[in-house]
């Protein structure tokens, strides 16, 4: 059949990756799809609870809360930029530069986690916010806040460790371009999740 001849050469007819990407990268994409659903479920749960609560508090003052979290956002965004640079350097095979850019990404990532911890500490110690109570009423405010930002922070922390492993390997001449690219994918994904968390958790809780 004529169509057989055609399929025999088509991308989907076997003998290689039809997406023209390595399996590792494809695997990371699949993980991202799955992890995106995990976060989506949390954000939907948050929306569901918030919509059904008439007295949901909006306690974050523009200054300092929103300014502080905006700085956190900028730090995280910068880390994505340095990650792009890392992948770019690796594409030219410049391992020394790649390691430096990954280290820069790790510094920004760690800075984000530290700032975030400071914010948590402030909320817990000074504002008395916990998963079961807060000074503004609805106890679920604290629960959703800590639950969602906590899971995100865990992802950033794991990402920093992951990048550390990649940097060490690249330095010793071990990992390939694909490995760096795949770690970059994860990193940008975690950054992207924050771009949903930030408006939904922070900007929608600005004190009017």
């Amino acid at each position, binding site marked *: 059949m004529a169509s057989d001849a055609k399929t025999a050469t088509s991308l989907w*007819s*076997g003998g290689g*990756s039809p997406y023209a990407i390595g399996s590792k990268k494809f695997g990371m994409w699949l993980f991202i799809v*799955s992890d995106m659903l995990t976060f989506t*479920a949390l954000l939907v*749960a948050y929306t569901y609870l918030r919509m059904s*609560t008439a007295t949901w508090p909006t306690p974050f003052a523009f200054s300092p809360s929103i300014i502080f979290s905006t700085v956190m956002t900028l730090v995280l965004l910068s880390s994505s930029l340095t990650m792009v640079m890392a992948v770019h350097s690796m594409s030219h095979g410049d391992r020394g530069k790649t390691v430096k850019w990954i280290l820069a990404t790790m510094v920004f990532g760690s800075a984000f986690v530290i700032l975030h911890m400071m914010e948590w500490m402030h909320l817990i110690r000074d504002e008395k916010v916990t*998963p079961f109570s807060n000074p503004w009423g609805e106890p679920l405010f604290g*629960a959703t806040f800590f639950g969602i930002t906590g899971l995100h922070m865990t992802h950033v922390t794991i990402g920093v460790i992951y990048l550390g492993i990649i940097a060490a390997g690249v330095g010793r001449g071990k990992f390939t371009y694909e490995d760096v690219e795949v770690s970059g994918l994860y990193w940008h994904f975690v950054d992207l999740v924050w771009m949903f968390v930030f408006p939904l958790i922070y900007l929608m809780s600005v004190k009017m």
Partner: protein
Amino acid sequence: MASHATHVHTPPSGFIRKYVFSLDHKVIGKQYYFLALFSVFLGMFLSVLMRFHMTYPDAKVSWFESLWPVGAPGGVMTPELYLSLMTMHGTIMVFFVLTTAPQAGFGNFFLPIQIGAEDMAFPVLNMLSFWTTFLALLVMCAAFFVEGGAPLGGWTAYAPLSALGESAGPGQGMGMNLWILSIALFCGASLMGAINFIATTIDLRVPGMTLMRMPLTCWAWFVTAILSLLGFAVLLSAGILLLMDRTAGSSFFLPAGLVVNDQILDHRGGSPLLWQHLFWFFGHPEVYIAILPGMGLASNVLSVFARKPIFGYKAMVYAILAIGFLGFVVWGHHMFISGMNPYTSIAFSIMTMAIGVPSAIKTFNWVGTLWGAQIRLTTAMLFALGFVSLFVSGGISGIFLGQPGLDLYLHDTYFVVGHFHMIMGVAAIFGMFSGTFFWFPKMFGRMMNETLGKIHFYLTFIGVYAIFTPMHVLGIVGNPRRYADYKTFEFMGQLLNVHTFMTHAAIFTAVVQVLFVINLFWSMKKGAKAPDNPWEATSLEWSIPSPPPFDNFGGKHLTVQHGPYEYAVPGKEKDHVMQVDPA
């Protein structure tokens, strides 16, 4: 091509690397199989205890007391113990048997071979996913031994019961925490497995193995993996929130004004319905995760032993895809009486009926495959036919349950128990039996005993219908589900005879399974040596030795020239054309 070069490997030599922390998909597949085999017998043992209690609620059994000093004081089972047995039975069966053997067991062993690959795309991830599943099983079993024992809330772990601590009953303390932990681990393991299966199917097919030349088993494993990837991700979120409610004092699933043990709880703002939504968003796809591999397998086996191409291969593929998609939009049919807007009910009901269409397409195609065929009635074939029978029996009751008006009455009765045991429980198990008899020669290099196999089939087939058919009637009469003692209601006293019948049928069926175990282990040691292709089947696993060598194809570069079901092709003198035969 590059992806093939990345995992060239030589067989490991040490015992640990070869059999314990093996990276070989065939060993991992067997590990999953035996994990599920252990679990299915544990689960069956629990179910026999439950059935025994239904019929003889006051019986004093001394070893009950030795096993559960608190749960069975004086040897009499308390309702709490009954509920914990029920919870563990359901959980172990759904997660560690139905989700494990058909997909991770057979799938691991045969997906790479059927598409011509040397191994899965990520062998290390594969090993990790098995050992994570193993750990999850250990944690689940540990729930029996902690203070308070195993949890009571059923495999669905409905809030608010599951979100409260010990105050809600024995087993709702540490036991429930372990349950959630185990399920969270299981989610992680399934996720790793799903990524592996999808990447393998997409990337590792040999030249010529187009998607539309894959055996239907591969299609089923592939779509099941997609369902796992999406479903377990959401269950993980639900688990995280539930664990927070229990350990951090939050109230995601706990509304205000809840009174437990005459005390108003200090929680407010949450919603038990939220748990139901999150759980069933996973839960309905989960029932297809359990059954799809069985459907793929049954299609395969029917075609092989009918010596005919599967009727409507393309329709079968599209039906699997349609079921996979529709499976995500029908979860509300489990919540018709949970307080749902009637319009929403109608929407969910219509979607649920819609899923009957691809299910019916599959059934008609199975029948079409059998039509006018010269059937070879092997044990594998008998179990595949049993699968179709059970699937139809359970599917029909599903249509009843999918009507909100009827479900109002039937929900939480034995009718539902009958429905899902027929269609998910036993049908999937028949799929596994069929798979075992079909693939045993390839997995272990020997043949199973057909006579013993057939006796086992007929007795089991009669047994399961005897257990589960009366349940539909009980449900229609109004016998509630998840109840430990029916004597409290007068009208149900009259139903005791039916319960007694089902209990005896259950004990009978459980005993019959000994035949299977004997057959399995005896054949492993003493069965006749299996030829490469004992069933004269066409897919790739039958073109290599039984059992397959370490790298499956001995480094040969295959090309596939044929579809998977070329039996009795007009104009060909051979009765079947192997996929690797020259064009």
